[in-house]
């Protein structure tokens, strides 16, 4: 027996590394199947894309370079109501899901045209139907009277929506634990040792063993993946978000750049910068976000900004998720994506099923998300 096994602090059927939205959804889905799941989380200092994100359940335009990504996104959006009901019913936490459609507002004609081309192309790739509409300023104003006069128009996606990502996190933890799932604040997982068909996780809190391991550690997957024979070419991409004070409701649909939460606060965001692991903010980018937001909704000019933050998206070279089981060490899975909110219902459903049963749902071709696509 090696020392690591002697120090073993506990074991479970399935270990999920990463207690963010992705990890928790998968853990919940597997726990529901009756297997004992333990989630190992880094704790309060984790980079935590789940806390910094924008809260969109977003379909339109996603997967323009990979039709299978569009399909899993739409599937997740359809499954979302069921997940929300389940969480609210069992935890009493209202996660504020609304799926009444969403708008991608464009400030210029050329931006609107580009957007239209993408969506038209996607409609061709999806013979099952790909609903969207292109709205000019007049049509947009009928939906949102406060839209600014300099706006060119918007694209409308009826399947889009939003949710409170913080309450979602809280509800997932509560639901997972109520089913007997274990959440361990283990600090960093420093090593994963495949051992006789099992896996030993070495953490700051000691060693833990499991039969299956799911790597859902976001940017941490880059280091963890190779320990189980999976290459995860993920890199950080910073998004900066502004949050303004509570105001009376004025925006009843989420947009790609601005959304009003149920509490009344206004979030403005969407910047894409390659800045390594810096979660800070820069005046210049924040000013640009504010500029865009106040052009879209001039009434926001008078509203006070309360907070801003940078959060790191988890990107892959083509921007699409990786879902992959290790060939070398079966039982080790890697999951990574930058849309933990949108894909939450897919992760808690078909992806969790795939991991717990070992066979994938026929509705999605998971092979398309294999990391080997980056080695071609």
């Amino acid at each position, binding site marked *: 027996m090696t020392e690591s096994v002697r120090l073993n602090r506990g074991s479970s059927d399935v270990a999920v590394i990463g207690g963010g939205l992705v990890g928790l959804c998968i853990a919940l889905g597997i726990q529901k199947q009756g297997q004992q799941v333990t989630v190992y989380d880094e704790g309060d200092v984790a980079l935590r894309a789940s806390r910094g994100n924008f809260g969109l359940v977003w379909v339109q335009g996603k997967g323009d370079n990979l039709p299978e990504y569009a399909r899993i996104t739409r599937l997740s959006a359809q499954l979302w109501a069921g997940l929300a009901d389940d969480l609210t019913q069992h935890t009493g936490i209202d996660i504020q899901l609304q799926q009444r459609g969403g708008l991608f507002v464009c400030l210029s004609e050329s931006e609107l045209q580009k957007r239209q081309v993408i969506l038209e192309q996607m409609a061709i790739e999806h013979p099952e139907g790909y609903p969207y509409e292109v709205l000019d300023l007049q049509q947009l104003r009928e939906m949102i009277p406060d839209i600014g006069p300099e706006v060119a128009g918007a694209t409308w996606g009826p399947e889009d929506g939003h949710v409170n990502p913080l309450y979602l996190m*809280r509800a997932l933890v*509560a639901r997972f634990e109520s089913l007997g799932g274990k959440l361990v604040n283990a600090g960093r997982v420093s090593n994963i040792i495949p051992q006789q068909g099992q896996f030993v996780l070495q953490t700051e809190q000691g060693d833990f063993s499991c039969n299956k391991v799911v790597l859902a550690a976001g940017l941490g997957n880059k280091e963890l993946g190779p320990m189980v024979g999976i290459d995860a070419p993920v890199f950080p991409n910073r998004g900066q978000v502004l949050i303004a004070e509570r105001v009376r409701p004025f925006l009843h649909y989420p947009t790609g750049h601005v959304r009003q939460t149920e*509490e009344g606060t206004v979030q403005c965001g969407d910047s894409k910068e390659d800045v390594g692991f810096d979660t800070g903010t*820069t005046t210049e980018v924040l000013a640009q976000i*504010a500029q865009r937001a106040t052009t879209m909704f001039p009434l926001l000019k008078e509203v*006070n*900004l*309360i*907070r801003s933050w940078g959060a790191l998206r988890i990107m892959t070279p083509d921007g699409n998720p990786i879902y992959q089981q290790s060939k070398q060490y079966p039982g080790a899975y890697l999951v990574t994506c930058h849309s933990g909110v949108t894909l939450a219902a897919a992760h808690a459903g078909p992806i969790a099923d795939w991991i717990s049963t070992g066979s994938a749902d026929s509705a999605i071709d998971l092979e398309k998300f294999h990391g080997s696509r980056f080695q071609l």
Partner: protein
Amino acid sequence: MTGLQQYDLVILGAGPAGMASAKEASEAGLNTLILDEQPRAGGQIYRNIGRPILQNRSILGEDYYVGESLLAGLAQASLTHISNATVWEVTGDNTLCFSAEGMSRQVGFKKLLLATGAQERPVPFPGWTLPGVMTCGAAQILLKSSGLTPVEPLVIAGSGPLLLLIACQLIRAGVRVEGIVETTPTANYGRALKEIGGAIKGWRHLLKGMRMLNEIRRSGVKFYKCATELRAEPGSDGNLASVSFRKGSTLHQLECQTLLVHQGVIPNTQLGRAIGLEHQWDEVQQCWKPTLLENGCSSHPDIFIAGDSAGIGGAIVAEIQGRTVTNEIVQQLGLKGKKDSEIDSLRKELADQLAIRPFLDYLYRPLDMFLRPQGETIVCRCEEVSATEIRGLVKQGCVGPNQTKAFCRSGMGPCQGRQCGSTVTALLADELGSNPSDVGYYNIRFPIKPVTLGELASLSQPAQDGTVK
């Protein structure tokens, strides 16, 4: 960033530390900018000192008017002074953003001095959010800047030198005080006595304290010592109607329309936190303070801190630190500073002034109910989150204040955690059986003061007058 207005030194805050620094910097020939949130220099301690409002100078006492000489020094200094200016962002490339007259501007600096002072320690107890409950510091500000005294009946409750001072000042002003409810725990007296050596060195401060206690005694105002279980109760209109507390086995209730509370002051660390400077937990003072070198330099080589924002020491200490730290900055910028002998004597004076601190810190360490509240006591005033709710989150897997924030919105309101940050950390430490140092603090985000989206947006456009870029 070439077009930015550049300064050798930018001083934030025109209280005793900032004013003293300004004078030194100007004498050394630094190109200096001082930014202050208030319309007139003085900070909170010397607030409105340039235009004293009270006809009767004996009400505030001579310690207040000491500020006049500092102000005179600032007035003679050759520098740029912008008042009503709120700094809302400092970035790593030695630039900062401030808002004044509804417009934001960016400036560059070689060195930055944070002289942002203190804030009163948040005092969560049942009913502290009721209209009519305010801090002792607030009452003093009203007295200094508007000559206003609180509506009667008035009760003053809490612990610390400022509590005694405002009580004396209001009594001198002829205000009827229904009672002074002192919450200093009995055990503190014994612990503080161990520090009596320092207290004797700082005998002037001790004497001042005794004079204040005598003044209160002579006035005949009821003084309840070692009170516990403080609670403010509303009337039918939702405003403060009475205060209750326990003294020994007796439960007292006093009707009042104003309740002034106080549990000491803590460094204002908001800006330093947002910049990402290193901070440490001070177990004796029960507060966070920035980690500093002896010369006042923070964990960022170009950012210095002086005065109460560096650690609580009071106005005189702040003034001396303002001078010594500025001297260090002057030398780092390659200019001639003070003579060594002069610095040595300032250092000695500083040590003398600080000698009494351990005694005061142990004596006025707040009662546990204020540091680690229980039950339905509101902890986050903005988002109305109770102590029970925060404590309960630990069972849901929260191990740190940033998770708490995400779970219940504590610290997400307009005050940005200034009123709940230290309490949330203390509650988590309590529930986890840990300590504040390991639990940590909220990540503080820019802007540290609200700025409108319109004002922020204007920074993205090229401006004519050097406003940005």
